[in-house]
Every structure is written in C-alpha cells, then in structure tokens.
C-alpha cells in the first residue's frame, strides 16, 4: 500500500488506467453491480439469442459430423488438414493473449493490465475450448479420442511420444488446466465479495460455495499472492511452449512451407497479435454496454493498439523470412511453394493476408485512429480475419501442391466447414455473454490496488489524534 512510483507511461499526455474519483467502495459497486444488480435488458437477450443461434449451428454441424464422418468437410488427400486445423491454430492463438496479459504483464508489473486480465483469461479459456473441439472432431471418431492419452489399454499399445501430435495433446490439455486454475484463483477473493454483497439467498449460497470461505486473512493473502505469482511464472513459459508445440505439428514435417525453423517464434507472435485483436474486439463493446469506461480506459485500448504494431512487425518478419529461407535453401519445392503462394490459385488470400494483418495494423501509428473506439474495433476485426487467413495460407497452400505434381489438388470449404467454424464463434461468444453476466469481468481486488486507499471516516477523525490517521 505504500506509494507507487509513477512510471513514464503515466505522464499527463496519457489517459489514466482508472478514471479519477474512484475508491474501494465504488470499485466494488460498479463491478459487482454488473453481476448482482444489472437488469436483464432486451438488447442483451437479442444479442444472446444471436450468438446462441450460432451455438446451435455448431451442435447441428457436430451431430452431422458424428453421423456422416469427416467427409462432410472439404478435406481429402492431399489437403487432409483443412479448416479443422486452421481453426484450431487460430483459436489457440487467440487464447494466448489472455495469458500474455494476465501472466507476462503481471510479472513485468504493468499496472494497466489489471482491468482487462480477468476478461482476457476468460477469453483464453473459451478460445481453448473452441480450439480443442477441432482436433477431436478431425479425428473422425471423437468418441475414441481418449486413445490420445496414455492409459494401460487391452490393446497393449501406447501413444508415440516421438510425434509432435502427442506433444500437442499434453500441451493443450495442460494449457487449459493451468488457464482454468489461474483464472479461478484470481476469482476467489472477488467471489467472496459477491458472496458478501449478494442479497438473494441462492446467490449467497452459490457464490459462498465457490468463494471457498475466503476471508481476506493476512496469512491467506501472503500464500495467495505467492501462489498467484508462481502461477504467472509457470504460465509464461507455458504459453510460449504451447504455440511452439503447435508450430512443431507443422515444422517437424517435411512439407514445403512447413519445414522451417522460423515457425515457433513466428507462431507465438502471431498468436499474440490475434489475441490482442480479439481482446480489443470484445472490450470495446463490453465497456460501452456495461458502463465500465472508467476501468477499461482509452489507455488500455491505446496500449493494445501499440502492442499490435509491434506484433505485426514480428509477424511480417516471419513472412519475409519464410520467403528468404525458401530462396536461400535452394530447394526447388520450397521455392515453388513461395511462388505458388504469391501467384497460384490461392494468391488473393496471400495478398489479402498482408493487407489485413500487416498493413492495416500500421494505421495504429496514427493517434486519431488509436483514440477512436470505432476505428479500433473495425481494425481489430480485420486483424482477426487476417490471422485466420494466415493459418489458411500456411495449412492449405502448403499442402495442396507439394512435391509430386500428379497429386496436386484444390481445397474448397463446404457448407459444413463454414457451419462448424461459425458455430465455434457462436460457442465462444455465448460463453463470453454468460461470463460477463454471472462473474465479475474485472478483478475488484486488483483494481483496489490502483485507486487511493480510503481516508479515515470523518466521524472518527476528531478522536484519532496521532500520526497513523492521515498518511495518504
């Protein structure tokens, strides 16, 4: 609670992390009222209806998949990894910004992360759920997906840990579990606040159960903070490892365009690029609708926009290095792959990728755009599309024409490819809609560390005579 040093980023020309005039009580009120008091409005129900419709599209698409098999998608040899893998990589990448914001920025003591971390962690969880659906569905027999895990089976067989696909099973399941733990641990003190503020009996019971009897004891806080810090320290290398392992799924193979050492860092940077875009796409409407502009300020949106400039250049470096290495390797198939990407049947997607992912992010250099929420929202959607196109380009253009021209073929997505993809967006947004309603979307505990501590109550001030009364 001692006074914090003011970093350079809090100079007068920067909008504050928290709007002035807030104290502990107003933080509690504004954030917990969204959960406890906010009325169920008609426009929320309409929005929820739309996203729930797409969720039901997903259920239908998955049901049809189970009935008919993966032949309902456009995949075939040579493009056996179609939308399923594109979407898997896209979703898991989106999840990564959540961990970056909550863990890495915590370790770097970036105060501004506080109001968006809860929200970003929820985004991570839901994105990983969407991501996990795709490889399971892509196995063709999802009811046998437990075969992916090592267990003593009557077949006397074990998974093969020399394959990146098994690394992926461990990486993604670990990532989901650790993200869930991190998110829940962060929620416990806030759940206690909700328990104490709830007036309806059932709310007191439900929040009481999940708050685990949290009291805010000094001993508990010390262990809690240590555990939280260590979780952040564990999640930081984990998030890098997860997308590295995802990129190994490609890089360890010999397919031209996949077999390259730039993949791990380039995938991780791309993941963060798309993740920030998704946080932006969600935060801009949410802060307006729930009246959270005081806590998710322009400062947050601007910082994310600036980070996206940086990640766009790392990603651009990856694109350029892919081209350079293909040329420098002297491999005929590698160079052909680059030329085919730029001028072949999927060339428009490749150039659209540069436009949406790299060039559009450069608009964030302009202050007028960084401070305009509508522009930020539109650009973040464009970057999300761009990062999806990146995975399309990587997966499909590499596979569709490899070493043997007699095996070349085109990939065209079917109705069910699109239905499954849009369906997972519906699942993701449905979970986000519910999360914003039933849990505090901003960490009250951590926000309180950013506002000035309360002054002694006026009625007591006359009797409190000595030095401990007015220190702040």
């Amino acid at each position: 609670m001692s006074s914090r040093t003011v970093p350079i980023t809090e100079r007068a020309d920067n909008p504050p992390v928290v709007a002035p005039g807030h104290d502990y009580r107003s933080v509690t009120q504004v954030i917990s009222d969204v959960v406890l008091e906010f009325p169920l409005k008609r426009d929320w129900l309409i929005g929820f209806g739309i996203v729930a419709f797409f969720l039901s599209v997903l259920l239908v698409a998955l049901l049809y998949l189970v009935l008919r098999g993966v032949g309902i998608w456009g995949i075939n040899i040579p493009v056996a990894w179609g939308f399923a893998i594109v979407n898997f990589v896209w979703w898991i990448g989106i999840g990564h910004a959540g961990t970056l914001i909550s863990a890495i920025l915590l370790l770097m003591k970036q105060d501004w992360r506080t109001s968006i971390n809860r929200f970003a962690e929820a985004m991570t969880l839901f994105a990983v759920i969407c991501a996990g659906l795709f490889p399971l569905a892509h196995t063709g027999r999802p009811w046998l997906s437990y075969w992916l895990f090592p267990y003593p089976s009557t077949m006397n067989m074990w998974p093969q840990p020399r394959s990146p696909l098994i690394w992926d099973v461990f990486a993604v399941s670990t990532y989901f579990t650790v993200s869930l733990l991190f998110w829940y641990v962060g929620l416990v003190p806030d759940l206690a606040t909700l328990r104490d503020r709830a007036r309806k009996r059932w709310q007191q019971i439900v929040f009481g159960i999940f708050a685990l009897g949290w009291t805010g004891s000094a001993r508990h806080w010390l262990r809690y903070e240590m555990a939280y810090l260590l979780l952040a320290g564990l999640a930081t290398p984990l998030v890098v490892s997860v997308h590295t392992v995802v990129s190994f799924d490609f890089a360890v193979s010999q397919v031209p365009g996949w077999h390259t050492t730039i993949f791990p860092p380039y995938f991780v940077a791309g993941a963060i690029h798309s993740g920030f875009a998704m946080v932006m796409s969600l935060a801009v409407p949410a802060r307006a609708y729930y009246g959270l502009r005081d806590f998710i300020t322009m400062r947050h949106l601007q910082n994310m926009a600036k980070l996206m400039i940086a990640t766009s250049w790392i990603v651009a470096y990856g694109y350029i290095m892919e081209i350079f290495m293909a040329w420098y390797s002297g491999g005929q198939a590698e160079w052909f792959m680059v030329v085919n990407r730029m001028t072949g049947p999927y060339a428009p997607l490749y150039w659209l990728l540069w436009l949406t992912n790299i060039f559009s992010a450069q608009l964030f250099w302009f202050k007028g755009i960084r401070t305009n929420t509508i522009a930020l929202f539109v650009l973040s959607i464009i970057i999300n599309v761009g990062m999806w196109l990146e995975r399309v380009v990587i997966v499909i253009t590499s596979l569709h024409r490899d070493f043997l021209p007699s095996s070349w073929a085109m990939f065209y997505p079917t109705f069910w490819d699109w239905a499954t993809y849009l369906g997972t967006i519906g699942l993701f947004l449905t979970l986000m809609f519910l999360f914003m309603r039933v849990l505090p979307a901003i960490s009250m505990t951590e926000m309180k560390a950013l506002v000035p501590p309360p002054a002694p109550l006026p009625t007591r001030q006359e009797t409190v005579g000595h030095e401990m009364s007015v220190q702040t």
Partner: protein
Amino acid sequence: MNHENGNEPAVYGLLAEFDTPDQLLAATRAAYDAGFRKIDAYSPLPVHGLAEAVGFHKTRVSLVVLIGALCGAAFGYGLQYFMVALSYVHNVGGRPIHSWPSFIPVTFETSVLFASIFAVVGMLAMNGLPKPYNALFNAPRFGLASDDRFFLCIESRDPKFELDGTREFLESLNAYEVTVVHD
C-alpha cells in the same frame, strides 16, 4: 453483541474494525507488540507488511511448487520412457529407443501442470480452505472485509485474551468499532 449472560455460545474472539489499511497495520503491530499471538488481520486486498505484523513471515508455497514441478518432470519423463522403451518398443525411423530429446516437450508440460496444481491445492490446503463455516461470518459487519473495511481479530484461544481487558486494549487502538464474535 453484548456479553451479559452465560447462555451465549462460546466467544471466538474480539473483532476491531478500522477505516484504512494503515490503521489496521499499526493496530496489528501494536497487538503483536502487546504480546497477542492468536491474531489475524482481514483486508479486502493484500496489505504489504500485514502478514509479518501478525507474526507470519514465510510461506512454503514455493517449496510445494518446486516439489510439484519435480514430480511432474519425473512423471512425464518416466511415462514416456516406460511407453516407448519398456512397454511398447517400436523403431521409429531408426532413432534410438531411448530418444530423449523428443521426450522433453511432454516432460516440460507435465512439470508445469503438476507445479500449477500443487500451487493451487497447496495454497488452499495450507490456508485451510475450503472452509464453509467461519465464526467470523457471524459478525454483522465482517462482510465489509471484502469491500472497503479492515478488521483485526484477537482470538479467545490466545493465552493473554480476556474479554474486558482485550476489548479496552482494542478500543485504545482507535478502532471504529469493537465487537464480540461468537462461535
């Protein structure tokens, strides 16, 4: 809230309420200096130095996490060694049976997984959570400990605890209010 007759349930302790984190910190230090040991301070957010003030200096969370990480690493590596070198020996591309570099990613993931689970379960277990019933919840204003109020509790199992004297002591610390908490 008064302590007039013997029909009341047993006294858990005395709870003093404060307005600010600094007041709580000063009061807690004063209580510790006065010889009270079964004390705890409650705040809506972590207050730097408060755990030390109640006489709690070192957590063992990091040790538990280290043990978790080592268990996870041993489990992950051992599992893979068992799978491909003992139980289901299989030549893949002429690589050695014990091809350790390809075991590293899974070993890393299981280390992180076990360490994280140990961190959370260990932290909760050492804190004695989940604890659905806590005598402090009987205090009417204690709910504000998760909002914007600060509390110091001197528990009745402290050898120096005696109702009237301790209450006077707490009141002398400029508490906003001192209440008796019953079990």
